[in-house]
């Protein structure tokens, strides 16, 4: 680290001091504070999104279980072994029961698919891992902030402190960007789906296959 963050063309010590103070104020406001606000806000937003998606996943899983169990209960207890209504059951009641069983069955098919979709969405956005990155970056920015110059420092010390402070903060920003870049990946489930669907589309495009000889 060099120790010559001299303001260019500032030979006058008073002007140099004022220039260094101007630099500090600028950096503190437009880099450090801005960045801290971003990390805090991003962490809160991602935490909130992650919690909401997780709740929905749990809700769909619960719904799947309840719907399956209810459908099973109704089919075994209310219908006869052939799946028809018992002779002594009213027609309306039988129809209502059939509707309820249908809804439960559809729910048991749809809800796990929605839960799986939310699972892939969470993989796509990587909320939990981003929260960890932003929280760590925020803590590291506080470390950089601890090196900020004190107004009572003489000019040489003020200059050195300003340099350490600003280089530290820029380093945190660079590290965060690098970690973030490594984190973002296309979810494997999406890639697997696309590959499988391409295969199906190719088979469909090749037309109906002739029946095979027995």
């Amino acid at each position, binding site marked *: *680290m*060099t120790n*010559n*963050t*001299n303001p*260019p*063309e*500032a030979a*006058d010590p*008073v*002007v140099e001091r*004022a*220039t260094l103070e*101007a*630099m500090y*104020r*600028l*950096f503190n406001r*437009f*880099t450090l504070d801005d960045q801290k*606000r*971003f990390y*805090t*806000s*991003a962490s809160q*937003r991602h935490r909130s*999104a992650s919690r*909401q998606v997780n709740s929905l996943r749990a809700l769909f899983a619960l719904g799947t279980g309840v719907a399956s169990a209810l459908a099973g209960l109704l089919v075994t207890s209310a219908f006869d072994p052939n799946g028809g209504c018992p002779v002594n059951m009213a027609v309306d009641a039988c129809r209502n029961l059939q509707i309820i069983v249908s809804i439960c069955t559809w729910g048991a*098919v749809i809800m*796990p*698919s*929605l839960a*799986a*979709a939310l699972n*892939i*969405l969470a993989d*796509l956005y990587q909320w939990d891992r*981003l929260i960890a990155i932003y929280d760590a970056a925020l803590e590291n920015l506080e470390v950089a902030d601890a090196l900020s110059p004190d107004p009572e420092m003489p000019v040489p010390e003020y200059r050195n402190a300003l*340099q350490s402070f*600003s*280089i*530290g903060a*820029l*380093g945190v*920003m*660079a*590290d*965060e*960007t*690098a970690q973030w*870049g490594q984190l973002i990946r*296309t979810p494997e489930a*999406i890639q697997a*789906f*696309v590959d499988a*669907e*391409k295969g*199906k*589309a190719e088979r*469909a495009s090749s037309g109906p296959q002739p029946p095979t000889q027995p």
Partner: protein
Amino acid sequence: MSDQPSTPTTISPVPDPTTPSTQAKKKRRWRDSMPEWIKQLPYLNLPKADPNYQLVKIDELNELMRGLDHHAQQRVRDDIAFLEQELLRLFRQRDSEAALQQNRYRKYQIGFISLATVATIIGGLQALYLGTAPRVIPYLAFAETLIALMATYLATISGREPPFPAWMNNRRRAESLRREYFRYLINLPPYDAVLGYERRMLLSRRAADINRGVFPEQEGPGGGAK
């Protein structure tokens, strides 16, 4: 500042007041009242970036500079004016392109997730109706084929000029340009070793290099060369 962007500054097109400055226009939309995960879904049409976006807000700068020596103020203002001309326009381009490609990428991915969900539901229904209503099976098979064709179509259009590497490249350059902006303004290495026109030319050269994806070997001590 790399999310997302909203990267960073990732460019959430509708930032709340606690987010840092971005190029995005502050405009209220229906999704403002939605749960957070819905707010983060991609836009069908991303709002246009602010063409006059500044990393240093002039009104706040005036407030910060109040009471400081006139020469010191002038020196900072001169640097900001030069940065506007040499670096900020490049940052704006990269930043808005990164936001655009991020939105494109997520749009395609959400499209695939939606198709995969429908395909899974159709598969479940096929299993359900195989024994009870076999006459609907051909229709479900047809729907499944349509899903496969749509997924292939989406994969084909997203394969041309793939958004993911474009997003990453533009975001990396934008963030590097942002750091270079403050490196010059605070006169950090390597700008502390030169004066006058040499210092300005050094910035122009480094900014142009970063913009074309050639990152300085080292951004300086602690600058996180990437």
